[in-house]
């Protein structure tokens, strides 16, 4: 089999696998019982355990002003007796910062490396989009480091484009 044919077949197989896997992902609001898994997943990905930070984030985004704050988790529903946390997403409706009309702001998205390329990220982003729309906004924003290719490719593939704001910074002397 030629390399070209093989690559095309692999791409088709990946699409099928992704569609099947997506059907096995369930997204719901985070619960207190999820937090140990969220903290462990973040520590595994960032190699920087920060339980206090996540406990505080959950207190603010998982328990307060739930009509405009969303802390969602994705879990596998393939095996109901042993549900596995596949990832999480956090966002909120932000308004009037720098003159912006209200928009949905995603500030955290994390997917278990073993669950990537299986539609988990898309399921999380779709779920939070639905919540934002229910909250009355029609624009979703996020911020990505331009050298993190994986995240850039993901958000672009989900239809996100550069917005009207540009991030500026300076060294403090």
């Amino acid at each position, binding site marked *: 089999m030629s390399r070209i044919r093989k690559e095309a077949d692999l791409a088709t197989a990946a699409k099928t696998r992704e569609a099947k896997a997506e059907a096995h992902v369930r997204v719901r609001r985070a619960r207190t019982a999820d937090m140990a898994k969220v903290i462990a997943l973040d520590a595994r990905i960032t190699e920087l355990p920060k339980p206090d930070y996540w406990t505080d984030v959950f207190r603010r985004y998982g328990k307060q002003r739930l009509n405009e704050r969303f802390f969602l988790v994705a879990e596998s529903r393939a095996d109901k007796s042993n549900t596995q946390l596949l990832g999480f997403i956090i966002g909120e409706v932000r308004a009037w910062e720098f003159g912006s009309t209200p928009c949905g702001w995603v500030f955290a998205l994390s997917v278990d490396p073993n669950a990537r390329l299986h539609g988990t990220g898309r399921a999380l982003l779709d779920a939070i989009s639905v919540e934002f729309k229910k909250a009355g906004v029609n624009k979703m924003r996020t911020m990505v480091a331009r050298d993190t290719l994986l995240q*850039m490719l993901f958000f*672009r593939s989900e239809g996100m484009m550069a917005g009207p704001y540009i991030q500026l910074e300076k060294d403090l002397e």
Partner: protein
Amino acid sequence: MRLQISTQLAIFAVLELAAREGQQLSVADIGEKYGVSSHHLAKVMHVMGRAGLVRSVRGAGGGYQLAGNARRTTLLDVVQLFEDPNSVEADGGTADATAEGQALRRVLSEIDDISRATLGSITIATMRKLVDRTDKSSRANTASKRG
């Protein structure tokens, strides 16, 4: 940022081929849609063929097929075959060594970084989705104007 005609044609050709995975298209088919000569397009396809992005299929009904994976090939992969995406450069010779020259270089480098990050993060598959969305939206606009 302005792309050269060859670069634009290369992107259009790859998008056409990606829309018809497994099928082949002749340069005449693609050229007709974009109003360009088959001769010019053939040169562009030759460059992309050498880079492994497309492959030619010989014989009756022959043409070109997409050879790469549309979900992995980015706009940057196509653009850099035809031009230097870091084309916004100061060329001041000795002026480059001055503080003014270096300050200007920092600004131009910021533009380069953003261009590369944009082109390098948009795959052909993502572009296809964008084309489909744009098409859908312009049809909806046309329909609403008629209605």
